[in-house]
């Protein structure tokens, strides 16, 4: 096992910088005004007025949190099920679904979900959940499949039950790969969630869409910068979790 303490320290330092910056940009409107005033002198309105940034960030986080949470839960469970002896028949189907599904653009999933469940939170949740599920499923399968046969034979041969084998040996050993999938999925979801604004799901996509429609680059930048920062912060935190995991196992 690799003990990468240096990586953890780097991530911690980055967070100490990123978190205050994000808080500042979320809470203070005057900061945006003083930055964008000289940049866009002809704009009347410099800060998105229809909702406060803390509210938008909250909506965004709720959307990402719920959809990614569900994707993690279902994705890992599915990945475990299809790598069990009795679920193995479904493994080829699950593998190809997981890799094929990621070639589907999320906008298309949104467009397909709207006629089924209507506008708002629900179709966005479904699209984000489905889209986030696939990398987690793919990584869980590959993590489980890459385990050394000798290790599993030893585990069984020493008298571990199937569930002891899963929780004491297979999952801890596959954890780094699974967590990498979780990280990719959640970060992509953070960015993709901005698209939800097009069908009325709220979140940090709202200023972006409003800016595009109303020809206001300041709104676009505000939404984009906050989404990007949020994605980087989530990526750094999940990166730290997987480093800690590798150490702990």
């Amino acid at each position, binding site marked *: 096992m690799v003990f990468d303490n240096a990586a953890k320290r780097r991530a911690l330092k980055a967070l100490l910088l990123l978190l205050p910056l994000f808080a500042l940009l979320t809470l203070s409107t005057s900061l945006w005004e003083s930055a964008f005033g000289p940049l866009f002198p002809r704009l009347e309105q410099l800060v998105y007025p229809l909702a406060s940034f803390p509210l938008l960030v909250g909506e965004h986080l709720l959307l990402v949190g719920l959809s990614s949470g569900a994707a993690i839960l279902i994705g890992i469970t599915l990945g475990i099920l299809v790598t069990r002896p009795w679920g193995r028949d479904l493994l080829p189907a699950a593998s190809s679904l997981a890799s094929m599904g990621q070639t589907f653009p999320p906008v298309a999933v949104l467009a397909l979900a709207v006629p089924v469940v209507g506008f708002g939170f629900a179709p966005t949740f479904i699209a984000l959940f489905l889209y986030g599920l696939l990398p987690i499923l793919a990584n869980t399968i590959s993590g489980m499949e890459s385990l050394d046969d*000798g290790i599993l034979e030893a585990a069984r041969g*020493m008298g571990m039950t199937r569930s002891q084998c899963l929780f004491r040996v297979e999952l801890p050993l596959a954890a780094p790969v699974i967590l990498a999938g979780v990280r990719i999925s959640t970060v992509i979801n953070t960015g993709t969630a901005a698209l939800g604004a097009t069908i009325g799901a709220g979140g940090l996509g709202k200023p972006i869409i409003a800016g595009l429609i109303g020809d206001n680059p300041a709104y676009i930048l505000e939404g984009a910068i906050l989404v990007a920062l949020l994605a980087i912060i989530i990526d750094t935190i999940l990166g730290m979790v997987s480093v800690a995991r590798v150490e702990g196992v």
Partner: protein
Amino acid sequence: MISLSGVTKRYGETLAVKALDLSIESGEFTVLIGPSGCGKSTTLRMVNRLIEATAGKIEIDGEDIASYRPEELRRRIGYAIQSVGLFPHMTVEKNIAVVPTLLKWDEARIKHRVGELLELLSLDPAIYSEKYPSQLSGGEAQRVGVARALAADPAILLMDEPFGALDPITRESLQREFLRVQRELKKTILFVTHDIDEAMAMASKIAIMRDGSLIQYAAPEEILESPADRFVREFIGADSALKRLALLKVGPLFKRAKSIKEREGLVAAKERIVEGENLWLTDEKGVVKGWISPRSLTGAEDLTEATTSLDPRAAGIAKDDNLRDALSTMVKFGFRTAPVVDKGGILLGELSLSAILEA
């Protein structure tokens, strides 16, 4: 005691093991051997039910293994394999503790047992307990693998080519070490290998298999002396006579030797020597210094001139050496008769070539 009766394993149309009858006495070191695909590993794994037999019955101490839950059965049987299969996310200590933990031993007892086992396998607990498998050499990893198999002190040990992936030098030292451990612990061992030399060195009984059937089941000496058929003869190889010598010890074959001390002088030597035999020259303590032949004695002016000197540490043979090694020493030094000495080089007797040939 493990007894297999009519044990069969079928995969589709093919029979991997055909109605095998085999009875292994407690404390016996039984080696299952045969070419690849002969069913030896399948047989081994049917004993701890990693593979379920298609037909037949396996009993341990008279109890049918089918009456146990497979996990319970396996926790009572040690298991070591070629790929070792140490868990890379656990320290050496945690790896060895796997079965005791499954059996819910208390922590202090586990800790004590792990230390005991590491010492038994010549690994310093202070150095190795906290290491991870990736920090071990192949030989060290396999020692830990064996320690892990012994952890809950099972009466039976199943080993599937445990030393197969090691380099020849490490393999031989581990074999010797494991034999020492076995002499101490007297486990009932079922050991799979395809290496006939390994089988000869380790086994108290060898079971030779081919195409899923048992061809011969006997002590190594017996297999070398009277192989059951052509297949066995070919399998044990052209050097079966030498292999047999490797199984016999010098101990019962050497006889008393005539010797003379340096201060006794030439005259005494001439009186003591017998035609066709040598006289060993020793110092006051009895350490061998050289040898005197009847021919070298004629015309010699003193004992030193008549003596061909030798180093007992190089040219001497120990009582518990095997005859193959003894023969090798004799060929190397051109002896018809070699001195048998103890650790300090003190003469115990002599071993003649004719004694080896008659053995």
